[in-house]
Every structure is written in C-alpha cells, then in structure tokens.
C-alpha cells in the first residue's frame, strides 16, 4: 500500500530519561523500570487497548484453529450441488436456515445463496486466509522496509540516493492499478501449474508487500539519520564495530518502537486491501475470502442480508480492533502523546 501507515512525526522513541512525572510512581519508592515495562504498564491500563487485544486474539485463534473448529461444528467449505437447497430466487430453502427459516445446528451461520455452501466454514477460512495473507505480507514488507531504511539512512551517499529514488519510484505507482495489471498476468502464467492456488496466494502477498514497504523504509531511514549521529553509535564506530553488527546490535533495538507501531497499523491496512482486491475479483479466487463473499452478497442484500453482514462484521471488527490497538501501542510507546 502506498498509503501512509504511520508518519514519522507522530512516532517518538522510547524515552530513556527517568519518568519522575509519571503519575503511577508518585509518592512511591523510585524503582528502575525498563522502557518496555513502562510501555506495557501503560498499555494494560488502556481499556480500549485491552478490548481490542481480546478481539484480535479471538480472530487469531479462529484463524489458527479454523480447521478443527469446522470439524467441531461439522461443516466444511466443500462444493455442493446447489439446486436442491435453493428457492427459485436462489436463496436457501427455509429448512436450511435464513432468510426464510431459523438457524440450524447443521449450518450455524446458514448456507450461501446460489452455491449453497456452508457460511460458517467459509467465514472461518475467510478469517484464516485474511489474517494469514495480511500477516505474512506485513512481515515481508517490514523486512524489506527496515532493511532498506537502515542501509539508506546509515550508509548515506550514493546508496541512500539510490534507495530513496527506488522508494519514491514505488510510491508513484498506483497500487490498485498495479494489482489489477499484475494479477491476471501471474494467473495466466501459472494457470497450468498444479500449485495454482498457492501461486495465487504468493502473488497476492507479493503485491501487498511489494507496494507496502515504502512508508516503513522512509520512516526507518529518518530515524536512523538522527540515531547515527548519537554518541553510542559514534563510540561503536570508534571501537571498530563492523557495519552489519552496528546496524543490528546498536541501531535496530532503538527502532523497535516505530517498527511495532508501523506493523500494527500495516496489518489492518493489508486486511482491508486483501478484502478489497478479492471484492474486485483480482485477489485470491481459489480459496474462501471475505471480500469474495461480500461481492456475492450484494445482490442478495434485500432478500438475505445476513449473508452480507457476516463477512462485513468480520472485516469491520478485525480492522477496527487492529487499528485501535495500533494507536494504543503508539500511545504507550511514545511518552509525548500521553492522553
């Protein structure tokens, strides 16, 4: 995504100055606390953050245990021959659940119009695919962005100018257009492959990560530019520490806060991007996806609104929770934005 996930101006560093003015410590014996512990303490006092964490945890558990959960409910994403389950307007018959009948234990979320597949199974696997794709894409985008940001910021000179150019170049490419163009090309190329389904997922992750790393690279570069002039870096240099070690041992630990905040804001962006692409029909077509279900649900909104609401609630809850959690993390890690 070329959209800004987090701006450098709103991200601070962990302050290593004593927290004398912290209200939590007033009137007590001053004890040493690591910056991370201070942040955790702030986070745990944030009620919204806790609720969001619970929601995110819920979805993560669903994603991890999608398979066993389907077995537990006795449902599956298997294709069925639909006509026996459907009314004339292609909505499910009353005995199979909504919209004309009550929910049944066989299909706790009902069955889909047109294809008559089980909604719960599709919802669970949709959550799994959504989180899986977004998480892998976030990790990849982070790796790429942090590496390039570190190198550019620390080495400076020609390397920096080149990397900045590449970053800016990628920022100029419109994400949706690029995805629209790339997806069919990749699909066409690998259509005969027995691993077509995997290729499609990998391609989607590639597109998401390939267009999502730039903001991180710029953010990290900026941070590194200020850090590299600090005394501890100078000292390490004087001692003859090799560049690689210096980057990883000295600089990286000081960048944990912005990285955590940026990833926590990138994740929801990718979840919605994945759903958006699937909605447009260019994301994953071989696996269940919330975006696909949304697209199919639109025509049935009037007769069978529940079918549209299921993926919608999934996406809204997950994206909202992840975003609020990201904000809470930023607040916790950055003393300057205390609420």
């Amino acid at each position, binding site marked *: 995504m070329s959209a800004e996930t987090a701006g450098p101006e709103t991200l601070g560093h962990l302050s290593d100055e004593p927290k004398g003015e912290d209200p939590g410590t007033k009137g007590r014996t001053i004890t040493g606390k690591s910056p991370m512990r201070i942040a955790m303490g702030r986070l745990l006092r944030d009620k919204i953050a806790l609720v969001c964490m619970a929601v995110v945890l819920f979805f993560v558990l669903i994603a991890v245990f999608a398979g066993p959960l389907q077995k537990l409910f006795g449902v599956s994403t298997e294709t069925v021959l639909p*006509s026996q389950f459907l009314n004339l*307007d292609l909505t499910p018959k009353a005995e199979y659940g909504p919209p004309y009948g009550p929910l049944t234990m066989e299909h706790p979320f009902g069955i889909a119009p*047109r294809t008559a597949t089980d909604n719960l199974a599709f919802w669970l696997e949709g959550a799994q695919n959504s989180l899986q794709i977004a998480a892998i894409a976030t990790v990849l985008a982070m790796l790429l962005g942090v590496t390039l940001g570190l190198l550019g910021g620390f080495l400076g000179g020609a390397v920096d100018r080149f990397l900045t150019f590449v970053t800016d170049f990628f920022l100029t490419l419109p994400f949706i257009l690029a995805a629209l163009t790339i997806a069919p090309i990749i699909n066409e190329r690998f259509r005969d492959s027995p691993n077509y389904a995997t290729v499609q997922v990998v391609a989607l992750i590639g597109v998401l990560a390939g267009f999502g790393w730039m903001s991180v690279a710029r953010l990290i570069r900026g941070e590194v530019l200020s850090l590299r002039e600090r005394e501890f870096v100078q000292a390490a240099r004087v001692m003859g520490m090799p560049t690689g070690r210096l980057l990883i041992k000295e600089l990286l630990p000081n960048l944990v806060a912005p990285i955590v905040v940026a990833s926590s804001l990138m994740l929801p962006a990718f979840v919605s991007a994945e759903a958006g692409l699937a909605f447009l029909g260019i994301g994953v077509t071989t696996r269940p996806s919330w975006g696909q279900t949304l697209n199919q649900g639109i025509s049935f909104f*009037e007769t069978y609104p529940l079918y549209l609401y299921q993926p919608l609630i999934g996406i809204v809850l997950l994206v909202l929770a992840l975003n609020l959690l990201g904000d809470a993390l930023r607040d916790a890690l950055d003393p300057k934005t205390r609420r």
Partner: protein
Amino acid sequence: MRRTKPLAALAVASLLALAACGSGDGPGEGTEGSFGETDAGKDKDPNAEGPAPEVEGAESGGTITVFLPGDYGPDDLDPTNGWSVTGNSIQQALTSRSLTQYRVDSDGNATLVPDLAVDLGQPNDDYTQWTFQLRDNASWEDGSPITAEEVAFGIARSMDSTAFPGGPGTEYSTQFFAGADEFEGPYTDKDTDWTEWEGVEFDNDANTVTINMSKSFPDMDYWGAFMAIGPAPLGKASNPPAYGQNIMSNGPYKVESFKAQDELVLVKNDQWDPESDPARHQYADKFIFKFNADPDQTDQIMLSDNTESQTAISNDLSASSYQKALDTLGDRLVQQSAQCTGFLYPDYEKTDMAFRKAIAYGYPYEDVWAATGQVPGVTRVQANSIMPPGMAGKPDYFVDGEAFSYDPEKAKELLAESEVEPLYSAIYYEPDPLAVAGAKVAQKGLEEAGFTVKYTPVQESPYSTWTNPDDKLNKSLTVRGVNWCSDWPSGSTFIPSLFRGGATYNTGGFQEDEIDEMIADVPSLPIEEQADAWGDIDEKIMTEFFPAIPVNYYNNLFTFGSKIGNPSGDEALGAPNYKNVFVMQ
C-alpha cells in the same frame, strides 16, 4: 452468431452479446420448459402496408427510459457494423430501416414484413438474383428521399470486412453476394468503384435494387431485415468510423446524443412518414437508453414503482430479484425466449460416443445454472436438440428416449464402456466470480460421475482459446463449448456454423463427410423442404454421432414500469418490443 456469454462463464465485460433474429411462438413457459411448436419460418406477410396497426390503447407522448444492466451496448451506431442483440434491437426498431423487418402482433407472433421495400423481394427461380422494389415515401431525417442508389451503397458497404470486421456482412454478404472475390468493399477496395461491383445493381428512376448472388440464397428476405442491408448516405458523409458516432436516421426516431457504453438518447424524427412503414410506431416523445446500468440498482428501481421507474424498462433481471418481481410485477415481468442454444463440445477425435454421453449424464445442469446466477427452468431450460425452440423445422426427439438429466450412476456405466481416458479437461473465465462458482460445481458433479476433472482458469474470453487452433492449452482440452444464437429462424444460420468440418465455431472439431454433404445439399432443395431438411440433419447428427451436448436454451427477463403500455418482448430479436411500447398518460 455466437453468444459472447459462454457456458458457465458469462463475461461481465462482454462487449457484444451477439446474435439476433428469429422468431418463436411466444415466450417460453418457464418452469414447464415447454416452448411450443413453431410456424415461425413461414410467418411472412409480403403484402403488409403502412401505417402499422395501432396498438390498443396507445397514447402519444412521454419519455421512456431503458436500463440495460451489465450490457455495454454497441460501440458505434453504424448500421453496417451492427451485429449485437442490444444494438440491433434498438436501432432496427427505432432509427435504422432496411429492406425488410419484423412485425410483432398482440399474440407475440413475429412476422417478416416489408420495410423500405414494398414486398419481401422477387427472387428468380434458383434464388441467385433478388429484386426489391423500394417505396417512394421513405425519407432521411433531413427530409431528403431515400434513393435506390443509397440502398445499393449500403449493401456495398456490408462487403467491407476490413472497415467493419464485426459486422454481419462478413458472414453473409461476402459469402453469398456475387463478385466477393473482386470487391472488398468501398473503403478497402480503392481500385474498384462500388457501382462497378456486380453484386448490386440499382435503378433510381424505377426505384429498384437488384442483388446478384454467387450461389442460391433463399433466405435473402431474412437477411434483408438486418439494418446492414439498408441505405447509407453517399460519399464521405458515411465514412467510418465517424459515421458510426453520428448516423443519419430514417426510422421514427433520430439520435439526439450518443455516448458509447453510457447513454443513447433518441427523439422523434418528424420526417418519418407512418404511411411508409408497416411495423413501426412513434408513440413516445423520447427514448433514453442507459447502457451498463448497475444490475442490483436497476432491479431496485424497477421493483420500487417510483416515479422514475414507472416509465422505465429493464432488459434484464437478476435471479435474486426474480421471486419478488414474480410476486409484484404480474404481466409487467416478461419472459422472452432467445433463439440460442448452449453446448458442451467434446473434442471429436479424442473422445468416443460413450464418453460424450457420460458427460450428458454427468453434468449437473441445474446446479451449474444456480451457481452462475441463473434461474433453473426460467432463464435456462434444458435443451434436447441443436436447433432452439421457435426455429422452423426444429425436430422433437430425445437422443436416449428421454431428456438427459444428472445421473452419476449412468455416467459411470457409460464411462466403463468408453475406450478413452475419463479426463474432463476444460477452461473457465476466472475474472467472473460466477463463472468460478459454476466451474467448481460442474467439477463436483462430474467427479461424482467418475470423471477426472481438470479445470484451467483463463483471463480472456474462452472463445479466444477455443477458436485458436495453435493454442497449447486449447490442444490439451478434451471438452470445449459454444453458445450459439440464430440470425433468423432457419437452420442455415445454426447447423453449418457449428457442425460443418472446419467451421470456426465448430470447437469440438466434428467432421463427418456424410454430414458435410448433407449440409451442402440443403440450399439446392425446394424452399419448402429446407426447414425439415435442417431438422433431419439435426436429428441425424445427434442420434448417430452425438458430437456435442446441448445444455440449455436461453430465456431473457424484461421488466416494465407501471405506466409503460403494451409490455411485451420482441421474439424476433430477443429484446423488449421497442416498436410497440408507449407511455400511459
């Protein structure tokens, strides 16, 4: 002509829902699937005269809005280039006249009647020369009379396959008109003046046009109902492609504005003389066609009965709204059969008859229709023969004594008899989610019937794979498909295109010399025997060789606003009957 929405792969972006013409016996009767017998091929009235009979209760005035959901409409309005159901149904009814036309009466029967000609043409004994006497009182929108020379020039334009690659002339004019070898059309052939071309002669004083054929062409009167066989202004005024954006009308309406893929506005043409036209009316003041309308939005508008929808027509209805429309619209929901058949076409060389019949029993017809958003028994009806209902000479037979239905056990038995590997290798159009769902369901059904299924996604229209003999993927397929619609109600626009050895849309590569000879012989038969001859060939191909599985016939659903008078379909074109609708004041 082929339908661009292939089996289980209806392209959302299909630009031309090609095909037109033919007449049936009224709308199909839905769930029963009984389309009725036909006398459509013989429905001709050479003596019909203008003005057209008044529609009962018709009133003048008002504006009619026509929504065309998911339908991009024509890219240009040039009559010579028109070969799509959408474009032809609008223009032939309202703006562009030709030699002949269809009149749809109150019972829904389409009859071939004269248009610019005073009769349906005078053929010679072997149908190699047709003479049309033109009427004197027809005129262009600027008031100038339509001359024989202009009609002849229009016919000469239809020879130009380079300037109009998508026009119907590429199929009929170049094949049947004399001198096709020497004349490539007025825009491509700079050496020959079109008046020197032997294919058409005109006499401005006698007001006649004579068309010479290279071979017997008894269906010239039907071909004359295409707007491509109509007049064009002489000289530069009608040069393509500019003319296609700014045509000169001669029907009851003229073009006020046209934005391709968006909107077409037609207003009354005051130079059109009702006395000169046996089938058209000029009731509404204005027609507004909205191309590529949003399907769900359109359904909501049409079902809401608000002021906007009371004078609107939609030429499509989503399956999800079908039940509600059925309950609320009454006879304002019109089910219109289109003269089309969809086939699965297994590779003739790679498969044997037992394999092909196994597909006929192993393909889950109704389930695929449901998954692709069609209403089983309403918009899709099981097919039993090559020729669709409403076509002259359509035989009534079942290959195995009764209709094929999904029967996995039977399919397994047949597969055991078959000597070829039970590999069902086919393609589907991936950008459309409905096509993906359809392919999944078909795969499930066929696997249960004992097939090994290999479905490969494609990103372009499946036809670009199926019709490309050098395509590697195409060579690997064991089953292809084709959906075909007739251009007029004769087997000659259907069977040769699909079952003649080497024909472009013979996607299964069916080739039997015996059948090729029978096809070649039909045009030399007496005209009244031809319809039945096509029917015999249909039955012979299917019972003796069974090269393709006829999967379904098509029905369209049209909805009409509550203030639209005479809600009905035009069975000749498979479109709403624009000629006869009016606004009730």
